[in-house]
Each structure stands twice: as C-alpha cells, then as structure tokens.
C-alpha cells in the first residue's frame, strides 16, 4: 500500500489583497489559504490513499502562523503532517524550499512511493519546487499531470502539453506536479475539521535542519499591475494612420 506525500504552500488569499493609492499592495487585512493547485495535490493524494490504502502525508514549509494550513490539510484527509517552520520561511525561494523539503523527506519519511505537488504556487507560480525537489531526491518527475494512476510499482500519468496529451509511465518512487483539471478538491465536513487537530503533526524548526541555503534573489518591491489608457482616437484614412504611427513613435513604442 503506497505512502503518498502531498506538498503544499500556505499562501495569501488574493481576494483579500487591496490596491493602495500608489499602486502598492496592501496586505494588512489578508487571510491565508492552501494554494489552489496544492489543494488538487492534496486531494489526489487522499483519493489515491482512499482507493489503494496506505497513507497520505502532508508536508509544508512556512511561518509559525501556518498551523491553520496544517489543520486544513489534515481536514482534507491527510493522515499526518510535517511542518517545517520558522519566521523566515514566509518568503523562501523555490531552491531553498526544495532543499529543506528534500532533507526532511529523506531523513524523516524515508520510505515513500509518490510525491505530489501543485503545478505552481498560487502566489508566485514559479513552478520550480516540484522539479527541484525530484532532482534533489533523485527520482523521476512528471509535470503538467491531469490524470494519474498507480499500479504495480509504477505510475501512469496523462500530461497536458501544448500539442496534445502525453501519456507517461514512470517507476516509483516518483514526483508529479498536478494541474487543477485532475480533480475537484473536497470541501471538508465539520467533523473532518474538528478532528484534524487530533492527527499527528511533526514540527521541525529551522535549527533542526541543515543550513538553509542563501537566497539568490532580492525582491525590492511589489506593486499592482497598472494599465494606463491615453484615450486617443484614430480614424482609418491615410492621414489618420500616419498620425497613429507618429503617436506610437512619440511614445517610443516603435523606433
């Protein structure tokens, strides 16, 4: 019976982000949630467990306040959780996240059959943690998965690629990153939520981990996208088109 790990990120719920007067992002009254695609990852892990037996383990790295996310993941059917936590884990780069996830999976969970990640996080959508984690663990990685099954020590996955659908088979253990089409995440029932805190959680602090690598990137600022319109109108005759081209030149859009 398989042991399936679902990785998730506890992210800002974008519905609560407000745009400030200067285009700045106001996070003062935000709430948090499990990233959208990560909910599909958890759901898939739990569905596989429910049909094949075994266990589903949720793993996340986040700030100490993310305990609600742990309960959320457990209420969705995971049997236990690993919570890697530190106040500095709120804005890690994908390489750092992948490194500590790999360390904990290797040292604490050891024996597993499948790791499921969302295709990308709901906040930055870098799509890197999954593939980097697979690389660090030395296991196959299958991305863009929209259908998944396990059988006789290998997985079979449908990948949605630009040209169509690719069907892939890979030996276990392996890692997949899933698309939202793979399932519809359940809405936990009241009892599921109330019982979540009774499930085992292993909390691992930063100083219990080997050195968390340094960040390579520095985020200087984050502002809302802005679209400015000049509201100029142009006709379709030759003179107007000349005026249109002149206007684009003036703004430096064309040379």
């Amino acid at each position, binding site marked *: 019976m398989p042991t399936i790990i679902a990785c998730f990120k506890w992210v800002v719920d974008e519905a609560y982000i407000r745009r400030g007067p200067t285009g700045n992002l106001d996070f003062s009254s935000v709430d948090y949630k499990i990233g959208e695609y990560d909910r599909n990852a958890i759901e898939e892990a739990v569905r596989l467990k429910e049909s094949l037996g075994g266990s589903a383990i949720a793993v996340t790295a986040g700030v100490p306040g993310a305990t609600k996310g742990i309960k959320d993941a457990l209420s969705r059917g995971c049997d236990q959780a690993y919570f890697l936590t530190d106040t500095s884990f709120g804005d890690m780069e994908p390489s750092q996240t992948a490194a500590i996830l790999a360390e904990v999976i290797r040292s604490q969970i050891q024996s597993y059959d499948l790791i499921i990640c969302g295709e990308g996080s709901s906040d930055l959508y870098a799509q890197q943690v999954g593939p980097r984690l697979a690389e660090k663990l030395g296991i196959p990685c299958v991305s863009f998965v929209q259908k998944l099954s396990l059988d006789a020590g290998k997985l079979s996955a449908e990948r949605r690629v630009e040209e169509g659908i690719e069907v892939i088979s890979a030996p276990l253990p392996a890692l997949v990153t899933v698309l939202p089409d793979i399932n519809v995440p359940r809405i936990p029932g009241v*009892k599921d939520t109330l019982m979540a805190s009774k499930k085992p959680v292993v909390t691992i602090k930063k100083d219990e981990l080997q050195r968390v690598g340094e960040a390579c990137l520095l985020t200087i600022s984050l502002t809302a996208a802005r679209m400015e319109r000049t509201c100029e109108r142009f006709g379709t005759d030759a003179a107007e088109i000349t005026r249109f081209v002149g206007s684009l030149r003036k703004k430096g859009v064309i040379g």
Partner: protein
Amino acid sequence: MDFKLTEEQELIRQNMREFCKKHVDPIAVEIDENSRHPAELFQKLAEGDWMGMPIPQEYGGAGADQLTFVITVEELSRSCASTGFTISTHAGIVCMMLLLFGTEEQKNKFLVPMAKGQHLGAFALTEPGAGTDVMAAAATAIIDGNDYVINGTKTFTSNGPTAETFIVFAWTDKAAGRKGMSAFIVPKNTPGMRVGEHFKKMGLRSSQTSEMIFKDCRVPRVNLLGKEGMGLQMAMTGFDHGRIGIAAQCVGILQAALDESIRYSKERVQFGCPIARHQAIAWMIADMATDLSAARFLTHHAAWLKDQNQPFSKEAAMAKLYASEAAMKHTIKAVQIHGGYGYCKGAKVERLMRDAKITEIYEGTSEAQRMVISGNVLR
C-alpha cells in the same frame, strides 16, 4: 479578552463560504422565486455534517460548539437566509431540545437521525390565537391509557411541510397555568395529525411554513418530552437557543447587504464618479458596517456564554433584537443605494429586504425581546 476565533472556527467558516458559493448561491434566486424546499441541498449539507452541528457526535451530530454553529448559520444566511433559518430551527432548537430534555431512548430514536440530517425537525407552539401570548394557546393533550390524545391547531410552523419529527406543545393541565403545558414528540404521519399547505410568504420563501391540525391525535406516553408541565419552560429554553440562531441569520443578511452595497456603489457612476464617493452613500455604508459589527459581537457573545455554561437568555434576546432591527433597517438602505435596480427581481438586496422582515417577528417579536430584556434588567 480574546476576540479571535479558533483556527477550526475560521476553517469551518471558510469551508461553509466555499460550500455556499458552490451549492447555495446558484439556486438561491430560484428557490426563493418558487418557494421550493431544496431537498438536494440539505442532502449535501448532511454529507458535510452541517445539519447537526451543535449536537455531540455520539448522538449523530458534529460536536461543534455554539459559536461555531453561529458562524455557520451566519455564512449560510449570507447566501440564503431561508436555508440558514431552516438549519437554525432544525439543529438549534429541535435537535437541541431533544438533547437537553430527551430520554436516552428518545435521543436514539429521534435525535440521531435528525442530527445526521436524514430528516428535518419542527417546533409547533404558535397557534392562530396565541402568538406572543403563549398562555392563550388552546391545544390540549389528555391522557387516555398509554397515550396522550392531542387536539388543537398550530400555525406558522417552520419546516412544517418538510419535517419528519415535531415537538408539539399542548395543555395537560390548563388550570396549572405556566406549569400546565407539556411538550410531545410527534412523528409525521401520526394518525390524527394533518400538515396544512405551505404558506405563501413575503420573504424567507424557500423555508416551508404551515398550519398543523391535530384531531384526536394519539401519541404514546413515552413521547412526552421532559416532564409533564415543563412545556413552557422548555419552550423558553428552546427560544433562548433559537434567538442566537436568528441573530446569526440577521448577521448573515447584514453582511450580504454590506457586500452588495460596497460592490454596487463602487461600480455605479453618477455625477461623474462612483456613488461610493458621495458622502450620502458612504455614510449609509459606514452605518451599515458599524451595526453589522455590533450585531455580530452581541451574537457571538451570546453564543460564547452558552459555550461557557453561563446564563444567556437576556444576551440572546439582545442579540436577536439588535441584529434583526439592524437587518431590516440596513437592507432598506441597501435597496436605496441600488436605486431602481435594487427594487427589481434578481437584485440580491431585494430578496434580503424581504427576508429581513420576518426576523423582527418570529421566535419572539422585537416587542417580546424587549419584554425579556426589561424583565431581566428590572428584576
């Protein structure tokens, strides 16, 4: 003092919000328009353990506290006040009364299936001639062998047409006054009991309401709830619980009125700018947000007192009084903000305004709440 909800309460609120967006919002207009009881929705609510929330798990419920239940009724009512009310009556009053006063046998037979959401419960006290004046009730229950024989007419019974289990109040000893009324568990289809037609109402239209007629209706003596003569006292306890639920329903209505008013006033442009920038509108929204907060705090406080096993009768009446009057006042304002569009069918504020009115009437009118509150503070 800690105003923070627990993580579980926050998650349950989020889950209910998601449930509403997925299953309630898409049908809310239709069930209002057609006065339809959405059985399929209650089936889904039962699957998520939402139907017996405040009832312990050993009796089929979810084992949540009153505050968590209140938050759920609030969120449900934000999408559909009828659905919020149906659950509030079913779980908050009928299931709760069986939990508080039922024998072990009664709980296993009647409470467990109700708390699991397999069927609905109803509370039948009001009569055509006995509204706020409960003592004017005429229904009687006379012992005959191993049975009580009930005669009389009940009206405005919420969940009447849809419930399977009824708590019915009748005089067993009228001469004993306040200690002469008793309560009975009456299953649907008991011979001699007839459920009337669903009333066509101004608002809360998908909640089913009817008359109930009892003519020589025999119920076994084991169906007596609590002790003989305790009926009125138990009914008041039921109301105390029910009022917290109605207050929560009002908070949900108010929240929806505020949501709609904010959204519309930012979109609607008049005199060259969104109407939210006009002080006349902005101040209406400020008052709405303030009363919403006040109503929510009163409601959560009453629920919290219940969870602490402290008396909460006065606080429940205060919460219900304040929240229901605020809901009525501000849904009228919300329609005003929406102008002609708010007066048309399809605008959510139109439904909210119709739904709000009943909250000042049922489970004790505003006047009855003032009687309870003044009775408490003038003691």
